[in-house]
Structure formats: structure tokens, C-alpha cells
């Protein structure tokens, strides 16, 4: 099997063979959501960090009894899988005040599902002197809760080592992305999303080796020029590669993104000498941000335009989950900026699972026609 095939296989199931193997050897697995929760802390405690991505969830009957049809289907799908036992392999979860939906996901999980270990983080909504210190203290509390719950000691040395490990992974993921800058990218956007999700579903050391092989294999690939438009995805949480595949089935190629499951997750290294917790706090808060961070719109936009230029993007799809107010408000800012930039742009509201595939394709085709019109 190629590295890509192996990674795609890992991504397919929430509870795959890699995790089963880890558990059989006595390993612990802790689920988390959101890119403001550093995996390094769990990793330094010898625990497998597992980012929740409710792959395969197609309906939320049980979860709808707790939440409602006015809550986003990402949160509801996570709860659905928890309520139906799909996440029973988890030894705990760490959630945070990401948004209204995920804040209440914690409460519903606590009362509706339960877990041996549950930790909740309050992450600031802006950066600056005071919030930075608050976030650092939150990381210390998170670290201490892991130590207490799992009887481990997370030393500075272990944390520094975990930071190095994750930095190597960030570097490898960036290398894969850089290959997509080519006129003939060797990997599709939908495949890339599976590579990313696989990283949340296997031990870090296994993932690192697979990524090294992937880079080596893709560097030798000729790549494809069989596409009519290079697209970038912006907006809220999206790990559903079927959504990207539906876009690419129209003949477009997703070459870049600014998603939390995508480039925002790994683009910047964790840097800083000395206290590793301070380094984590500084780096995670200064990463390209989520719309939950107020006042950061210009920085988010700068990151987005850099990605557009770097990946020679022809058009942008701004996708967001229905009922997500954060990205539903951010579109106000982005829409204006896209108008000023003059790059073809489309706003798509979607559910977590792929639905209305034909309508989606029709809309992407319309975007492609606009792009084609600009070329003439």
C-alpha cells in the first residue's frame, strides 16, 4: 500500500485498527475538539490525543433530543456518536468554550453520556496581555487535570519533546501542502483532508512515519493538470472529505484552505525557549485564528490572501455550517473583502454530512463558469 492509501484507510473509521491496537496495549485515548486545545499536553502524558470528527454520522436522532435542530450538525453529530456508544473507547474528553454549540456539547455529554475524565477549558476571545496570561493558566490547569486523572507526571522535558514531535508533523504537513502549490498538484483536496483526519486517529509516531513516506512518494508524482479551477476553502469546521470530493467531482481542484481541520492546524510552529507551557500558550493563541476570536478579522484575512496567492487560487468557497453564528457573522467581513479583491467567491451553507450533492455541484459549476469567464 502507498502511504496515501494507508492514511486514507486510517481516516475512514472513528475507531480504527490503530486505536484498537493502542488500547489493547493499555494505552489511553482522550478526545478533544478545537484547535486551541494543545495535543502536546496529552501526548506528553503518554495519552493518545483524539480530535473528534464525527465521520460517517448521517443522522442525529438521539442527539436532537438533547440539543435541537437549531444547533449545528457538527456538535449534534459528535453527541450522536457519543450517545450511541461509538466513542466508548475514549477514556476522557477535553472541551472548551469554542462556541455556543460546543459549550453545551460539554454539558450534554456530561449528563447524557458521562466519561471517566472530563475537562473544560475557558479560552479567551481575544489576544493581549491579560488574555494571554489567562490562557497560560488554563493550560496549566489542563495539564494538572491530566496528571491527576491518569496518574502521570508531565515534566517540562516531556512537554518539550512533545512539542518537537508535533513540530516535525507540522513541518511534514506543510511540505505536503507546498506540493499543492505546483501547477500539477500530486494530491487532491479530498485526499488531503483524509491525510489530515488520519493524524487525529493514530499514534503520533505512526503518523509521522506515514507522512515522511507520503512526502517522498508525492514528490515523485507527476501530479494532475486535469482540472479547470484551483479553489480554496475558507470558513468553519470541515473535516468531511466527501464534501471536498463532491466539489472536485465537478472538475475543480481544492488546492488550499484556511480551515481549522486544515492549514490553520499546523501552519505555524510552536516556538519559544524555556517554559514549554508558555511556548504553547503563545503559539496557539497566535496561530491563524478562528472566528471566535474577536478583532482578529484583518489577521485572518491576511492569512487567507497569503494562501490565495501562494496556491495560485482561481476562486474561493466560503463554507460554513448552518446555525454557526461565528462564521455566519464572519462572512460579513470576508464578503466585503472578497468583493474588493475581485476574486470569484461563493458562500455555501451546509450540514456536517454531505447533503444536496447535486445542488452543491451545480453551484460549484456556476463558480467555475465565473472563473472561466474571467479568463476570457
Amino acid at each position: 500500500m502507498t502511504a496515501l492509501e494507508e492514511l486514507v484507510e486510517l481516516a475512514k473509521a472513528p475507531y480504527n485498527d490503530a486505536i484498537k491496537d493502542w488500547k489493547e496495549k493499555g494505552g489511553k485515548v482522550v478526545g478533544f475538539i478545537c484547535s486551541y486545545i494543545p495535543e502536546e499536553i496529552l501526548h506528553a502524558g503518554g495519552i493518545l490525543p483524539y480530535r473528534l470528527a464525527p465521520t460517517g454520522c448521517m443522522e442525529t436522532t438521539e442527539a436532537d433530543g438533547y440539543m435541537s435542530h437549531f444547533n449545528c450538525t457538527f456538535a449534534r453529530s459528535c453527541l450522536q456518536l457519543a450517545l450511541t456508544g461509538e466513542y466508548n473507547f475514549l477514556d476522557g474528553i477535553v472541551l472548551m468554550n469554542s462556541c455556543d454549540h460546543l459549550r453545551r456539547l460539554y454539558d450534554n455529554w456530561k449528563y447524557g453520556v458521562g466519561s471517566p475524565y472530563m475537562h473544560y477549558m475557558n479560552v479567551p476571545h481575544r489576544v493581549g496581555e491579560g488574555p494571554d496570561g489567562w490562557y497560560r493558566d488554563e493550560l496549566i490547569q489542563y495539564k494538572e487535570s491530566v496528571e491527576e486523572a491518569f496518574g502521570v507526571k508531565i515534566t517540562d522535558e516531556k512537554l518539550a519533546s512533545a512539542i518537537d514531535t508535533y513540530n516535525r508533523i507540522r513541518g511534514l504537513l506543510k511540505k505536503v501542502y507546498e506540493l499543492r502549490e505546483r501547477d500539477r498538484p500530486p494530491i487532491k483536496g479530498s485526499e488531503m483532508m483524509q491525510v489530515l483526519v488520519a493524524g487525529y486517529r493514530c499514534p503520533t509516531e505512526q503518523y509521522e512515519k506515514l507522512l515522511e513516506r507520503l512526502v517522498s512518494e508525492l514528490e515523485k508524482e507527476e501530479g494532475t493538470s486535469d482540472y479547470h479551477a484551483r479553489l480554496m476553502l475558507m470558513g468553519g469546521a470541515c473535516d468531511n472529505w466527501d464534501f471536498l470530493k463532491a466539489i472536485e467531482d465537478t472538475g475543480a481542484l481544492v488546492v488550499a484552505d484556511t480551515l481549522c481541520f486544515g492549514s490553520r492546524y499546523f501552519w505555524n510552529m510552536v516556538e519559544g525557549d524555556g517554559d514549554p507551557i508558555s511556548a504553547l500558550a503563545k503559539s496557539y493563541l497566535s496561530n491563524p485564528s478562528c472566528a471566535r476570536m474577536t478583532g482578529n478579522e484583518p489577521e485572518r484575512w491576511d492569512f487567507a490572501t497569503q494562501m490565495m496567492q501562494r496556491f495560485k487560487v482561481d476562486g474561493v468557497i466560503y463554507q460554513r455550517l448552518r446555525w454557526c453564528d461565528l462564521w455566519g457573522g464572519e462572512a460579513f467581513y470576508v464578503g466585503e473583502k472578497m468583493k474588493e479583491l475581485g476574486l470569484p467567491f461563493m458562500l455555501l451553507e451546509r450540514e456536517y454530512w454531505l447533503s444536496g450533492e447535486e445542488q452543491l455541484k451545480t453551484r460549484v459549476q456556476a463558480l467555475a463558469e465565473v472563473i472561466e469567464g474571467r479568463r476570457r
Partner: protein
Amino acid sequence: MAEKMELLKVLAFVTKMQNDAQPDELKWVGAARAKHWARIAEAHERGEPINWNSFCGSPEIFHAMGIPSIMQETIGVMSAMFPGKLNEKYIDIAHENLIADHVCSTQKVMIGAALCGDLPPPTTIVHAGQPCDSTMVTYSAISHRLGVPLFTLDIPGGKNERVVQYVADELERMVAFLEEHTGKKLEDDRLREVMEYSNTAYEYSAKVNDLTKLVPSPLPRMLATPLMDSAGTPEGAEYYKKLDELGRAVVEFGKGHVPNQKYRAGLFSTWVAEDAALFDWLENDFGVMIVNTMLGTDTSRPTVDLSSRRKMMEGLARKQINAPMSRECWGSLDDWFDYALPTCRDWKLDVVIMTLHIGCKNIWASQKLFKDRLADELGIPTLLVEVDFCDGRVFSSESIRARISDFFNTMMA
């Protein structure tokens, strides 16, 4: 294009007219609101700094600094309550500018009114990082579009001393921001003077709360407390003093505010701004007296220690994190239960009405746990009814009333 409307003048005019129409002995009822809007309109006329603040903020610091501040959500509610359907015009403009239709309508009104020029840009925008995502994103977005400096008062969930100290520091950072951009200063003595009025208002507000716990309740429902705008002003203190006097007089008279009170209800969420008669209908047709509301019952706000600036900031921080709606929506559900369960007992509630406003995603996501806990622990039923706080086009008044009717005719029969 429709002619530009000077919204600030309109709001000042309407609130003054409403107050003028009252008999002299009841002029205190609308005085705080009328003075608030008059102050804003006058400052605008004179070209003085004006701030916008979000819901859940304590207004005392703005008063102490002499900066008239508009809590934007009040415009959302007022534009929905007044004739002319201005709310619909503004909401449509917000949607045309890609604000999602499910973002809170109170803030969509702000966006639309600002974009069409009816609402002049402020000097500064200060928004609290509470109680919801909609607040979080809309103030930030409009500040960039208008080119107005923004300060986000970061409020973590939770109510412990660590949070209090952090929010007190945040308030000082907010003051520094306002001083930098408005040229106004916060003097300790002036803050103390304002806080004295605030303390008086809150002390009487606590007495009023106690009166509304009586059976029958002697006072009319309070859908929103004027303290959100007027805490720290003489008229704010006067309002609660008079309300307390009125309540005690009614108690002495031996009657409740509503004859034949059948059910004592708590309204633990927003309401329907466009249907002002909804609660009269509830009283008249079903004998339902609303005795406690999320936005009108201000609790958990101890008198602020005035001995030092730091103590005052800590007191304001406590108010901030316990502000109505933040109290319910911003922390964990356990925090909400800690407030809601004693509230049900203290106010002797027979039923809780939880309007599920489309903007309040956290309330939507709490509905089952909340409803079950109240039923299991207290035997109190909860009516869940879908509404949009400031846009009557989303859920019609007829459908809302039909749902309420069904509930009281069947569940409570």
C-alpha cells in the same frame, strides 16, 4: 433609496413622548429611559464621543466617564416594538450583507441601521465577550466596517474569584481603551459617586425582587430591567425606589397586580418584542402572571464596596459575570441550574416558559437537560416555544400563541 432616518433623534423623541404621556405621579416609570436617549441625542448633536456597548455590560463606568453609551440590543428591541417595522428594514440589510439569517436579530438591527446610515458611527465600540456567539462576532465585524476602534471585554465562563480578578483587570483595560480614544478620564471620586447611585438602585432592586416573590405578586412583570442603561444614575436609583414604594403599597392594599392569578410563571429567556400584548393575553386568558424574567430580574449583585477603586472594579466584575442572560447562557449549565433551581423555589413558580429565540443557540442546546431537571427535581413543567426576539416574520405571533394555548389547555389543565 429610502430617506435616511436620524434614528437617535427618533428614539429620544419617542421615549420622551411616551414619558410625557404619563400622569405626573407615574413619570418616574419612563424617566430613566427618556433621559438616557435624550443624553445620547444631545451628545451626538454636540459632536461629543459616543460609545456602543453590548448587552450584559455594566453601564456605570460609561456614566462615570461621561461617555453616553448605546446598548445596541435595546435598539433592536425598540425598533421591533415601535410602529414602522424598522427592525425588518435593518435585518434585511444585514442579510443582504451576508450576515447569516440565524444570527441574533437584535444585533442584525444594529448592523443594518449602521450600514444604511440611520445610526451614526460611534467613537468607540466596547462589547462584552458574553453571552453568545452572535454578540461576539457582530460587534467585531461592524467595528471593522465602520473603522471604529473596538475593545472586547473578555469574560470567561465561571464565577469564581479568579474570574472576578481577571474581569476586574479587563475593566481597567477597557477604561484605558476608552481614555485613549475619547480623551475622557475615569476619576475615582466620580466613579464612587456613580456607584453610590448604583448601589441604591440595586438595594431597592433587591427589595423589589423580594416583593415579586410574594403570592400574589404585587407588581407587574418586568421584561427588562432599566438598570442595563441606568445603573449609576439618579433616575435609575429613583426608579427602583419608587417601584419598591408602589409594590409595598399594593401589598398593604391586599391585592395582587393581576386579579385571579392562577399560575406563577418564570420567563427564563427572551420574549417577542413585536407582540407587546402577549403577556396581557396570558394574564387575561390563562391567569398566568410572569413574576420572574431572565432580562428583568437582576439578582446576585451584591452592594459594591466603595472603599477603593480596585474594590469598585471587583464589584463591577461580579455584576458583569452575573448579568442577566450571562448568568444563564455564558457559563456551564451547572451555573444556570445553580441559579434557576433556587429561583423556581423562591418565586414559587408553577411553570417555566422558555422561549427558544433563534439567536440563543446555547438555550436551544440546553432544552432537554433543563426541562428534565426542573421536572425531576421540582415537578415544574417547562413550556418550550420557538420565537425570534426581534423579527416577527420568523415565527408568527399566531403560531406562538397557538403553542402557548395548547400547553395551558392541555399540560396545565
